[in-house]
């Protein structure tokens, strides 16, 4: 009866396989106790070094705790966010993760109930007194605060190669208007120099150029109006900004689509082009190349944006049902502390969210940025997910991708109008 016996074995095996596949997930739940899982997309040299400063700040408070560093490489979190979304939807959150304030924090994570308020930390640690109210407002919903910021980048920077400009008899003062930029650009173009460098592989760098130009034309007040619906994307001033943006694109490098943002910054350093509109993470590139502030390179606000400070900030949150709550509270306290902010920000190239830090630890650019942080109107960035839903951010990137090749202002503004409509959280439009 070999056949019968084999059949029985086969049957048993197949049933066992089925049983194992059904029961397996139940057995994976053991977790070590004294841990902290930190999820971020800080993997490049300077970023990872900055993250280590945060870990050191936490380690000083909880020496015995083990940090699980769940970083996922990929510019701007493009690869990390899908993983995070999957983990949140699956009910398996990391203790804390990197987040931008504004819509990304409030609309994406607070609204969906994935994070807990940390308002009591703001009271017990006295952060409300040392961080600007305008900044805290971008993390507040219904009186509760949901994140603490490690550092703040300024998005509306306009960088230039100082030596190259003076060779062509161009000097830039403490600010630059659109007219002055176009005059300088014509002069450079006539001399065979590419005036503006853009590295828009992945398109967001060109979207950032548009964001800064739009802010420069409409001003901070109407900028905020764009996000609460009181200013439409087909209004005349928005279209005017689009026209100016189109004009600026006429001066950009021909290989822009093949370059990343840092390669474009590098071209400014090498002198193969003159200007670059970029957030102050570009400062890190100049700094790492050992160029000297105000000598080799200079900066102003992007044309028209002197009175504004585009916030591109990185914060951390407390996950709802975080597996290691106690450690996480210490982690957030460490991030908000003066010592950690002073250690983290010079490495990361941003300025502290606290205004009471020792300014001598920072160079000329960051002191300039801290002055702007104190006096300018703080506005959220749309390119970095703070001003509008992710769906609109994507619609903006898509519209910019098309505009860069066809320069059609009407189609551009129409695409943004419908992008805003599609992104509105209401249902059944």
């Amino acid at each position, binding site marked *: 009866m070999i056949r*019968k016996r084999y059949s029985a074995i086969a049957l048993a095996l197949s049933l066992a*396989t089925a049983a194992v596949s059904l029961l397996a997930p139940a057995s994976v739940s053991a977790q070590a106790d004294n841990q902290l899982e930190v999820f971020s997309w800080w993997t490049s040299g300077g970023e990872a070094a900055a993250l280590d400063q945060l870990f050191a700040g936490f380690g000083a408070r909880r020496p015995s705790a083990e940090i699980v560093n769940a970083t996922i490489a990929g510019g701007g979190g493009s690869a990390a966010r899908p993983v995070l979304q999957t983990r949140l939807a699956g009910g398996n959150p990391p203790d804390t993760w990197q987040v931008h304030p504004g819509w990304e924090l409030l609309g994406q994570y607070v609204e969906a109930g994935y994070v807990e308020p940390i308002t009591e930390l703001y009271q017990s640690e006295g952060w409300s007194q040392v961080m600007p109210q305008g900044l805290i407002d971008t993390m507040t919903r219904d009186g509760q605060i949901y994140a603490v910021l490690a550092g703040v980048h300024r998005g509306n920077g306009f960088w230039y190669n100082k030596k190259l400009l003076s060779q062509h008899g161009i000097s830039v003062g403490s600010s630059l208007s659109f007219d002055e930029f176009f005059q300088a650009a014509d002069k450079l173009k006539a001399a065979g120099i590419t005036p503006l460098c853009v590295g828009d592989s992945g398109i967001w760098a060109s979207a950032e150029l548009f964001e800064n130009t739009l802010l420069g034309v409409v001003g901070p007040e109407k900028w905020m109006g764009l996000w609460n619906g009181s200013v439409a994307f087909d209004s005349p001033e928005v279209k005017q900004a689009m026209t100016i943006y189109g004009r600026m694109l006429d001066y950009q490098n021909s*290989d822009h689509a093949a370059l990343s943002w840092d390669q474009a910054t590098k071209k400014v350093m090498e002198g193969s082009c003159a200007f670059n509109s970029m957030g102050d993470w570009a400062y890190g590139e100049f700094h790492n190349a050992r160029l000297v502030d105000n000598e080799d390179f200079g900066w102003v606000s992007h044309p028209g944006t002197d009175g504004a400070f585009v916030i591109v900030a990185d914060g951390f949150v407390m996950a709802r049902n975080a597996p290691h709550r106690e450690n996480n509270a210490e982690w957030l306290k460490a991030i908000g502390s003066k010592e950690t902010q002073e250690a983290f920000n010079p490495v990361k190239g941003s300025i502290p969210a606290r205004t009471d830090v020792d300014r001598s630890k920072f160079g000329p650019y960051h002191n300039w940025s801290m002055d702007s942080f104190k006096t300018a109107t703080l506005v959220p960035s749309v390119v970095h997910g703070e001003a509008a839903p992710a769906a609109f951010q994507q619609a903006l990137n*898509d519209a910019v991708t098309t505009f860069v090749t066809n320069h059609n202002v009407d189609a551009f503004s129409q695409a943004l109008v419908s992008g805003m409509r599609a992104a509105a959280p209401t*249902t059944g439009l």
Partner: protein
Amino acid sequence: MPSMPLAPSREVAAARVQTGQARHISLEHLLPPLILSPSLGALLIFVYIFIGTTFFVSMTNWRTLAIDTSIRQPLFATYGEMFAMPRFQADLRNTVIFTVLFLALAMAVGLVLAILLDHHVLGRAVFRNVFLFPYSLSFIVTGVVWRWIFNPETGVNVLFDITGVNSLLGALGVGPLRPGWLTDPQVVLAVNGALARVFPAAEGLQVQLGIPVALIPTAIAAAWQLSGFAMAMYLAGLSAIPNETREAARMDGASEWQVYRRVVVPMLRPITVSIAVILGHTSLKIFDLIFAMSGVGPGFATDVPGIFVFEQTFKATRYNLGAAASFVMLVLVSAVIVPYLARSLKED
């Protein structure tokens, strides 16, 4: 195991049917489905139920991180929105153009290589492996390497300069050859005007129907990787064609060209169909090669539905839109696979 009598007596046989042996027979019948059931169950859950779920998600209002399974009204609104997007229109155009370019290139190169290898027996095994080697690479590796090759400032254009091609062209009064490759936003041979004359509805298209120049390098890279596979398939096909057939054609006075044109290539037709189906569905689902090589490209010149799904789902968190685009991809792939499967089932 004692040997059983070959022809059991009638009584024994009757007894078997009446007693325990009846269970044995039914167990014999039940066993195949029982053994298959775990894999059938897995197939049902992980393929068909997931397809159904995707379709369901595409009908819902789910477009933030928070799951929302209410049905969107009017029905199919997400699909309407998607087909009206210039980006998705460009994606469909790119899929068709990429598939045609890539299939034509890969199959032509594969056939030529196979015929050459079939002729020259010396070093055949070595060359067969050399040409098949790219097939073993990951699309990501291919994408990164070919992105460097087609970089307009540092890649193959430098070769035009140092080999003197450009100085020659300059001497002839033609400008230097410096194509923008992956950065070229042009769409050549656009047929929008002609199409609008036939179908007035085509006026509503927001995308130029033509060949995006930046898509050509991606098709070259894909063909480089997969023409070795086409070659291997054709080699197998060629070895199955008996030499007598070719001899007979030659005896009838056919030239070598005619032998191939009239006898060999027509006899390879089943192989050609198989290659077209296998490469065709690879091409319709392509994501990694293009993502690594050029991303969405200038003005969506190299965007494909796979990248659209990824960005709309995970970057824009528009799960319903991503699901709708996935479903359209499934329909596209089915359009290629189902007729092929139906045909091979009929042949069986």
